[in-house]
């Protein structure tokens, strides 16, 4: 009997099995729960209930607005920062980039807690009492604070790849600095904008740690919704999770998916 020769292809089997059991099957389970009732009969009740409840829909709208505002603010802050760093001729600009990424390595909850303590201090000052009750403001601030590096990193890597001779050519052809910025820099940084936007928008819809810790539990976002249903109604929770899943996949499809080299959390560093 001939022993079958070792083939390098077989090495992908453990990972494939892992993915089937712990990624694909759970997705199917969610799908199953979303379309069944508590007696495990096929039912579209969750779907109908979800879209006919005005309080649910208004929460979703609020959550989307929060995510939109957070994403826009992150973009407005991160774009100039990434541009300045990418075009800087400084020898050690890498160190400054590191300074932006470094806080990400402190535990996320501890970081939000630090911000919470700062807000507590500020609202005890004279004339700052309004801050104590501004739950939406604090939530958005916290999200921008936490997700800003996700916007800076992809923008920086895309801008770094822009050929400097394009700037020179644009100047030689008589374009002003502003025209070069709007007609060279911005169009060429669109891929970075896309991945930055997806990387910020998604957690700001779903990461309810920030809204719970900074918004005095008065701000409900989609992620919190799922977690609330998790306690009592898995079927409804699965339905919302499924809807979120579809939204995420459709938007990723449209933005062209994730490029591995523009990876989150400083892989490329």
């Amino acid at each position, binding site marked *: 009997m001939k022993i079958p020769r070792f083939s390098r292809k077989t090495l992908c089997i453990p990972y494939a099995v892992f993915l089937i059991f712990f990624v694909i099957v759970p997705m199917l389970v969610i799908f199953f729960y979303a379309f069944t009732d508590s007696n495990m009969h096929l039912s579209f009740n969750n779907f109908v209930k979800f879209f006919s409840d005005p309080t649910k829909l208004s929460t979703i709208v609020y959550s989307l607005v929060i995510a939109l505002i957070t994403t826009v603010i992150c973009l407005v802050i991160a774009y100039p920062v990434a541009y300045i760093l990418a075009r800087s001729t400084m020898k050690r600009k890498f160190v400054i980039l590191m300074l932006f990424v470094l806080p990400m390595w402190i535990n996320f909850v501890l970081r939000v807690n630090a911000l919470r303590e700062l807000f507590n201090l500020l609202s005890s000052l004279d004339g700052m009492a309004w801050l104590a009750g501004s739950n939406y403001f604090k939530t958005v601030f916290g999200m921008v604070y936490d997700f800003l590096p996700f916007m800076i990193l992809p923008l920086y890597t895309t801008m770094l790849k822009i050929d400097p001779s394009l700037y020179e050519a644009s100047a030689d052809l008589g374009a002003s600095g502003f025209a070069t910025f709007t007609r060279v820099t911005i169009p060429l940084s669109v891929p970075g904008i896309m991945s930055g936007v997806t990387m910020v928008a998604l957690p700001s819809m779903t990461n309810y740690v920030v809204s719970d810790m900074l918004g005095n539990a008065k701000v409900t976002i989609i992620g919190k919704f799922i977690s609330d249903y998790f306690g009592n109604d898995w079927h409804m929770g699965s339905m919302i999770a499924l809807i979120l899943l579809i939204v995420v996949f459709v938007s990723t499809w449209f933005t062209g998916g994730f490029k591995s080299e523009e990876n989150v959390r400083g*892989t490329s560093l």
Partner: protein
Amino acid sequence: MNKKHVVFKCLKAFLVGLVLLVIYAPILLLAIYSFDKTNMIGRFEGFSLTHYAALFQNSKVLGMIGNTFLLAFLAAILSTILGTVGALGMFYTKKRVKMLIHGASQIPVINAEIVTALSLTVTFVAVGLGRSYFTLLIGHMVICTPFVVLSVMPKLKQMDNSLYEAALDLGASPFKALWKVVLPQIIPGVISGFMLAITLSLDDYIVTMYTRPAGFETISTYVYNATTKGNAHTAVTLASLWALTTIIFVIIVLFVVISNLSSIRKKEASK
């Protein structure tokens, strides 16, 4: 022209500095008050190390720190092995199979963490596994392994493939060739994948919250509960959390400085 240039430069430095100031303000605030005698932020009463002492005397807090790091280490090791072996297999397999595995592997990357957590927990409970250290570890591996694959893959693509063939021609077994020839070429990707897995696991709250066994606390779940559901001893605990934040911050700064210095030195040595 020149004056305009200087103004512009100052403006740029001001903007970058301002953003950095806002980013570091909360952390520095905690760092300062972690050395205060009292546990009130706002008035500095006098230098003391009480909060640091409290941190190291509280067995519950020490337990959760230990839990966090042990879990991160185990999850990172397992994810790195699984991800590296998986990436190797994917690299050598047919394009269609590779695309399929890659597609499935991207699901946890782009998915909302709460959806990953919910789907895993519902599945675990439905098949009767419940929630245990095993399910927690699997949960962390699900969020970490795809990132290991993503950081190993580019290194495989850059690799010189003929070296493996040469090793086989010279009589090495396929395993030996992978171990001695392929692995050394992709090791930077493996290491960065491992580091990434550690940070992802240390940072996680949501997946931990849902898949953990009863009574198991990590830094994330502990801090979240201490701040959102006030307990009687919270004030004392919160102050020792400032100390914890400061310690972690200092360790990270040291780590970054040392690794940067050593890489600069290496570069200069190779010149």
